[in-house]
């Protein structure tokens, strides 16, 4: 046993030595980057890429906190998680000189609330979260979040909501016109009461299954990410994605430069590579969300470029990113969520 351990740790040391010359360690979602693109990066730069995967933003955070920080060069957290990681000191910064392709970022994503001026992250893919309705079941008006929170007779008991505190509470707040991170007791009480009352009309909570329940017909309406809704439509379900008048949730996955990255220069080369419009478009064509880079249009597949889910109608209410509340306020929102699911 001891010898086994010694041999293996020797192997690990060897692997560590190799890492210093021309490798890159990426912490990513599974099936979120096309392998062809990774191969192209390796061919262009000679840098070998290792990809490790996670299945939720918080799982990634937990694993980095539990000791994996320093093993990876880049990760791909969502907007609010970028802010949390920055606050926790998990991110490194880069300068504009180091990242020549920085100006390729679409202007509206350059100065984002979770990373003002883009000093440690670049956009990867973004999209929206609202809801979709099966038009075979319900043909009425779907321009309000009331479809989910005060559903019409036809949809009652056939609604799936995302099993995610952020999305449910923010969409609920938008529906009631309450600001995010509110500390007003009456507003929060109203939010909690509204959600508890709405829950009786919901069939299930599920995030990963949000698309499948719409395709199979288990749910006739559901909170959903725009990309999932587009896929449900592509799989033959007659679903329509709504951009409700109360607003919707925006999300953006970002490539971040991690603190103590073993291959910092390679990480920056990789991020810079992803900011080339052609490469950014390759990700979009694969993942079917939206790129945050200017000039990708000519490289996009027609179906993705023109999909109704990716292109809000003119005059649609603006979307909002999830805000990171302070600890005391977050406690209240946690309590509302626990009360909803108890």
């Amino acid at each position, binding site marked *: 046993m001891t010898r086994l351990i010694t041999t293996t740790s020797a192997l690990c040391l060897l692997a560590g030595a190799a890492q210093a010359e021309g490798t890159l360690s990426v912490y990513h979602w*599974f099936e*979120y980057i096309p392998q062809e693109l990774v191969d192209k990066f390796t061919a262009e730069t000679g840098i070998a890429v290792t*990809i*490790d*995967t996670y299945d939720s933003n918080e799982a990634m955070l937990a694993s980095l906190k539990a*000791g*994996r920080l320093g093993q990876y060069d880049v990760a791909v957290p969502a907007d609010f998680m970028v802010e949390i990681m920055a606050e926790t000191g998990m991110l490194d910064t880069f300068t504009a000189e180091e990242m020549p392709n920085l100006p390729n970022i679409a202007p509206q994503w350059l100065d984002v609330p979770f990373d003002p001026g883009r000093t440690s992250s670049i956009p990867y893919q973004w999209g929206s979260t609202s809801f979709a309705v099966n038009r075979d079941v319900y043909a009425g008006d779907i321009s309000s979040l009331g479809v989910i929170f005060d559903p019409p007779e036809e949809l009652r008991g056939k609604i799936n909501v995302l099993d995610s505190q952020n999305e449910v509470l923010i969409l609920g707040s938008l529906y009631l016109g309450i600001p995010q991170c509110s500390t007003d007791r009456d507003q929060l009480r109203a939010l909690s009461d509204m959600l508890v009352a709405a829950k009786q009309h919901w069939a299930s909570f599920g995030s*990963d299954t949000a698309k*499948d329940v719409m395709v199979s017909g288990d749910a006739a309406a559901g909170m959903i990410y725009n990309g999932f809704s587009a896929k449900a439509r592509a799989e033959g379900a007659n679903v329509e994605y709504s951009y409700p008048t109360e607003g919707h949730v925006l999300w953006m996955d970002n490539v971040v430069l991690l603190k103590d990255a073993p291959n910092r220069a390679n990480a920056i080369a990789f991020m810079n590579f992803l900011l080339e419009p052609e490469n950014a478009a390759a990700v979009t064509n694969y993942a079917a969300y939206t790129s945050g880079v200017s000039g990708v249009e000519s490289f996009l597949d027609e179906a993705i470029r023109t999909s109704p889910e990716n292109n809000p109608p003119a005059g649609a209410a603006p979307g909002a990113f999830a805000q990171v509340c302070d600890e005391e306020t977050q406690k209240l929102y946690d309590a509302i969520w626990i009360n909803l699911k108890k």
Partner: protein
Amino acid sequence: MALRSVRHYPSFFSIAMLCLIILYAPLIVVMVYSFNDSPSITNWGGLSLRWYFDVFTGPEAPRFRAAAWNSLTIAVLAATIATAIATAAALAMLRAGKFKGRSLTFALINLPLMVPEIVIAVATLIFFTMIGFTTGYLTILIAHITFCIPFAYLPIAARLQGIDGSYEAAARDLYATRAQSFWLVLLPLMAPGVISGYLLAFIISLDDFIITNFVKGAGMETLPTAIFGSVKQGIKPNIMAISTLMLGVSILFVTLSYLINRKGRQSP
């Protein structure tokens, strides 16, 4: 006549068949949808082999192959080692008289069952980091051996408890050493328990996602981490194709073991 009737309870046969139907019905869904032409796992779009091509020749093929290989080798190694450890522990617990700390040891053996997986996962990762253990294949293997032990131990111990001491006593009377009587008498008698324990340890290791996800190192992927990680895209029929292939491999094993078994019994 009496022999038949006390052995066979007619309703037991129907229940066993019902049991097999319940076990296999969902697998038919898996198999059917691995041949679906559409990227959906709920809507049928025609017959196609595209997902099998995807698994073997698609851009992700090397990663799926590596994941399947890691999963199988870890399951075989972890189940083998855990079964050996559990067999030794069962002998000490049931064939070494009463001793102080026996109940405590029993609790210890079953501890992996009692702690929720996610807690083992986070705690183990923190622990490995504290002692400076680089995460990778070996850390996954160690973690798997640990949680496989009770799954191997319980069937083995249940079996050993039913074995009368007189068999070994007879062997000893015939001047067999303790080692001889273990290998030639006790172990064959224990075999159904050992096999049951091994099979349970194997499937529990093959299926583990939560712990593996935390203790694996960069670039290490097992089939469950690949499957659970697909949330950004949703489950596609390529996962169904891989699952069907895994079923094929397992059925191959069953057939082989049956043939070997039969051959072994035919030759004197």
